[in-house]
């Protein structure tokens, strides 16, 4: 299967075409094709995962441990830790010529290793659940078929990105998921805000893509290839100059910032919530936005060497991630829209991953990507379930929700599990992954980022408590008749809740399980990373901070303690609140100042230059030529040249006028002249001949 992993993206791609062609004529209007294809991809991904694990375990001589994973599901119990000799397990690759240039052939192909397999599993699983969920959630939508076609296309593109063995192919997948994101955010494009959000998302990520493109180009010339494995190998072995690596990693970081919603290009992600909720869950929480993190993980040797991550000094990557954690979490506090809370939370969590990469916590960052995909998709789908059956298609927590726990028990409990996982409470998935990031940061002596991470954990726990309170507790403030959602919605919630509980256990360092690291961390062309030992104190501290966050928030919301109404009394607090409400004025800066000036003044000035200066010059030349021509015609031609011609004609005429008197027309006069002349000539002859 590993060599045939290209089938996994191909199936959804085929279903995209099929839904476009015949979807509308099918009984379920194309949904069955999408669900079927992605389901099949999921099965294939599981087989691939199974085979990869087999390969790794076989290489380390522990194949008997495999039996424990008979279900083929990664979430199973790990079993033994023990000694593990580092044995190189090379990725499985396959490809063929895609294009050639200057007699050099470039491949398109797949490279399957642990990271890829993990991503395949996550993407196909979440996508499959979202497909199932949408059959009910999107029922009766004006563009149901269209929605499913694009979900399929998105899944195919994301999988293509994941299996790519070269940077160009990665770029192709990267842009295609951006396209799907664009169309799906603008799914209800009749309303202008949705269309605006779609354009904003595409353009903002595209700004980052400039960096990605240039980064790929620099790497190509530095390493002489687009092949990711080869680039990584050269970066690790120091065959690429440090300056080039710095430039390349800085440029690539631009791509990560754009795609993964990092500060300062995070502003598109909250707006992207204008799309349907399943889309938010799949694209803007679980999969597409982690593409940036995936890129960082995939080309990690480049970043590792470029940013000198092993040095323990502050680097741009960790700094960006850290900043994003705090600014995202802070904004989550002031949102009334449940999806916006989750969106800012996603930004903040992506910040953890990027910071994790920045502090050398590769396994932890990727692990957090893995767990986050489950609980964040769960939270989004839960929010969707609430709006679908509880609040009458509204996402406003303060106006239309509250007290829903009584009406929607399944949604409530699964949402609670997701929240606890996000807040990092033991034993849910988020605890293990977040703790590992913090532990590695501490161990690699990135103390500053350890603190940032802890503050972030506190804030995460607090705003999630607020969110849960406003949605499920208190009095019901909506106008509908809340009830539990149908099975197609609740079953995916339950499955995801299961993963949110168990997924952390594949790499639970406290229990000495490090299966995730074993399976996923590359062993070829990869820098030697330090892995932290489990420290009870650190884990306890993280847990305590999270619990404190919950406690404070609980006191404030549930018990009505603390400085309520402080924003009305204290001008400083009010200023801070306004600052947050306006999202640090970044949107205003981008939309009014930058985009506004380019689209308005600068574009108009260019066009003015075009019409007045350049075209004016052209027209001026033309007018000048016409005037020269007129002058030439009036003065030179008509007066001088033609004058000369006419003068000649007139004088000829006058001469002729004189002569006409000779021409009497009378034959006899002519004869007279004839004879007279003959006589004269004869006389002359007579005279002169003598």
């Amino acid at each position, binding site marked *: 299967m590993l060599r045939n992993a290209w089938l996994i993206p191909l199936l959804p791609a085929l279903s995209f075409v099929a839904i476009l062609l015949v979807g509308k004529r099918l009984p379920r209007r194309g949904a069955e094709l999408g669900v079927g294809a992605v389901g099949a991809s999921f099965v294939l991904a599981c087989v691939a995962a199974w085979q990869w694990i087999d390969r790794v375990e076989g290489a380390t001589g522990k194949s008997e441990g495999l039996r424990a994973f008979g279900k083929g599901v990664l979430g199973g119990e790990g079993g033994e830790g023990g000694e593990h000799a580092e044995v190189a397990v090379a990725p499985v690759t396959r490809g063929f*010529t*895609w*294009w*050639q*240039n*200057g*007699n050099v052939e470039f491949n398109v192909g797949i490279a399957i290793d642990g990271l890829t397999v993990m991503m395949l599993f996550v993407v196909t699983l979440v996508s499959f659940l979202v497909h199932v969920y949408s059959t009910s959630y999107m029922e009766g939508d004006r563009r149901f078929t269209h929605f499913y076609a694009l979900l399929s296309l998105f899944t195919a593109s994301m999988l293509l990105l994941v299996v790519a063995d070269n940077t*160009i192919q990665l*770029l*192709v997948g*990267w*842009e*295609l998921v951006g*396209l799907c994101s*664009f*169309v799906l955010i*603008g799914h209800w*494009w*009749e309303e*202008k805000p949705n*269309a*605006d959000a*779609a*354009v904003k998302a*595409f*353009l903002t990520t*595209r*700004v980052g*893509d*400039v960096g990605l*493109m*240039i980064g790929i*180009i*620099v790497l*190509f*010339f530095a390493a002489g290839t687009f092949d990711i494995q080869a680039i990584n190998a050269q970066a690790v072995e120091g065959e690429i100059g440090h300056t080039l690596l710095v430039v390349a990693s800085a440029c690539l970081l631009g791509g990560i910032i754009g795609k993964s919603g990092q500060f300062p290009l995070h502003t598109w992600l909250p707006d992207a919530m204008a799309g349907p909720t399943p889309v938010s869950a799949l694209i803007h929480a679980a999969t597409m936005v982690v593409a940036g993190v995936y890129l960082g993980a995939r080309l990690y040797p480049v970043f590792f060497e470029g940013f000198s991550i092993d040095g323990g000094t502050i680097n741009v990557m960790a700094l960006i991630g850290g900043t994003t954690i705090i600014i995202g979490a802070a904004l989550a506090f002031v949102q009334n829209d449940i999806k916006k809370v989750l969106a800012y939370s996603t930004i903040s969590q992506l910040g953890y991953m990027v910071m994790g990469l920045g502090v050398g916590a590769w396994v932890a960052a990727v692990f957090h990507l893995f767990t986050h995909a489950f609980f964040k998709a769960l939270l989004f789908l839960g929010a969707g379930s609430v709006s679908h059956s509880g609040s009458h298609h509204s996402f406003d927590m303060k106006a239309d929700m509250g007290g829903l726990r009584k009406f929607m028990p399944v949604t409530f409990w699964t949402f609670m599990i997701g929240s606890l996982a996000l807040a990092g409470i033991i034993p849910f998935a988020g605890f293990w992954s977040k703790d590992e990031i913090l532990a590695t940061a501490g161990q690699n002596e990135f103390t500053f980022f350890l603190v940032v991470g802890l503050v972030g954990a506190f804030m995460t726990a607090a705003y999630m408590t607020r969110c849960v309170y406003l949605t499920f507790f208190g009095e019901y403030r909506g106008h509908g008749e809340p009830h539990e959602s149908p099975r197609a919605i609740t079953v995916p919630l339950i499955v995801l809740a299961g993963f949110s509980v168990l997924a952390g256990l594949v790499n639970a360092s406290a229990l000495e399980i490090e299966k995730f690291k074993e399976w996923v961390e590359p062993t070829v062309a990869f820098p030697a990373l330090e892995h932290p030992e489990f420290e009870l104190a650190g884990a306890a501290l993280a847990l305590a901070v999270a619990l404190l966050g919950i406690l404070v928030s609980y006191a404030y919301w549930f018990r009505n303690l603390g400085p309520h109404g402080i924003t009305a009394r204290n001008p400083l607090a009010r200023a801070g609140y306004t600052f947050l409400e306006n999202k640090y004025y970044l949107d205003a800066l981008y939309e009014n100042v930058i*985009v506004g000036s*380019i*689209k308005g003044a*600068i*574009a*108009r000035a*260019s*066009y003015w230059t*075009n019409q007045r200066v*350049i*075209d004016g010059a*052209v027209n001026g030349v*033309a007018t000048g030529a016409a005037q020269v021509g007129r002058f030439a015609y009036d003065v030179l031609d008509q007066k001088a040249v033609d004058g000369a011609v006419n003068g000649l004609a007139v004088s000829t005429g006058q001469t002729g006028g004189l002569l006409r008197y000779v021409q009497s027309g009378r034959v006899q006069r002519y004869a007279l002249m004839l004879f007279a002349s003959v006589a004269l000539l004869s006389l002359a002859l007579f005279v002169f001949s003598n």
Partner: protein
Amino acid sequence: MDWFDSGWGLTLAIFLPVAGMVVVLAIPKAQEQAIKIVALLTTLATLAAGVGLLVRFDYDDTGDLQFEANKSWIDVIQSRYHIGIDGIALPLLLLSMVVTVACVIYSWDHFPAPHNPKGFLALTLLLETGMNGTFAAQDLILFFIFFELVLLPMFFMIGVWGGPNRVYASIKFFLFTLFGSALMLLSFLALFFLTEPHTFDIPTLAEAAGEGLVGSTQNLIFLGLFLGFAIKVPMFPFHTWLPDAHTEAPTVGSVILAAVLLKLGTYGFVRIALPVLPQAAEDWAPWIGLLAVIGIIYGALCCLAQRDMKRLIAFSSVAHMGFVMLGIATLTDFGINAAVFGMVAHGLITGMLFFLAGSVQERYNTRELSRLGGLLVQAPRLGWILGFCAMASLGLPGLAGFWGEFPAILSAYEPLEGLPVETFRTFMVFAAIGTVLAAGYLLWMFQRVAFGEPKPEFESAHIHDVHAPEWIAWTPLLLLIVALGVYPNLLFKITDGAVTGVADGVAKAIGG
């Protein structure tokens, strides 16, 4: 099939349309159906000849001229009827044929006012001969004649079937390009008289690679060629004829103009200017690159200021041709390959965009962006095709536009040895920023036209979705956009050998 390979096939591909034009002219004006059928059959037969060339082309030897004919023609000036195609000319020749067929089909039921299909189709056929001939000519005089042959039908197309301001636009187009070609002809003559033995033969001149010409003379000759080609491309600041011509031209005229005519200029650079005068090309390359990058940014900014959909697309051509010229300016095989790919991709994509602009105008009787909206509501298929083409145009990977754009940017990182590397890397960054602006104006255009609700004035208007002639005309173009995007080697494999030959020639001439 010996006759086909020995030049007759190519000759057929060039002159069939003119034969068809004669037949069309012989049919009485009233028999419109017969005229249309003859025109369609002619273009199809030409395309069949083109497919024949494609099939019998030797892909292991794309760098050499194939289907060559070399007969004496005008002995007094030693100009010969020398035609032949290599890997660079073949795709462009095919592009010209496909686009012409699409144009004839597209205009089947709706000829622009003042109607008169006879005249219109006759001009289209004459245009095709001019375009095909330019791509196949291997003799400077022959090239020049075909190059100029294209002008006249286009002039009449704009001047007769154009919009309200057609007279101004057509005259501007005609004079501007004629000005360029006059200088170009001067350069051709200079080349003729300054080489020994005197010849107009392009391969011979390329073989000599400017040997025996003093540097300053080379530069002067190159300047003449540059002006002739740059106006046709069009490069900043010689582009101002383009928006006017496009805005006023009838749909089919715009399509042919954008899809094929602009390529004559860039093709001229690759076929004549670079191989014949490599040293001058090296001297001029940074300036060409600079103008190309200015064109990219500047064209994009002008797009953002447009209120007319067609004018916006016209300015986008300035930006896109900037990428092509940037690729050429690097003088590397990588860049020139990207440029040739970019030419074909731009021909397909921008041709499609002009078709769409024409269809939108036909349905709404306006191209004002502020009056349009909700196309997806009233004509969803048309709207999605517009979206698809906008995406292709902004260089979305997986569609054809990407493979012209990205490698061109990439090639600017490392131009030919001897060119200023830092300058070109700066160009690269600006070109990459240009892609963001491209996304900006295209998405903005798409949003204004397709998203939202229809404006009140068109709310109750009956808007047809894509109809049959449009489907037939567009499907091949759309399929090609996808096919070239998904598997770019379809094209790179053909061009690579020929381009490497050109680039090696340039590199050798500069190095030695």
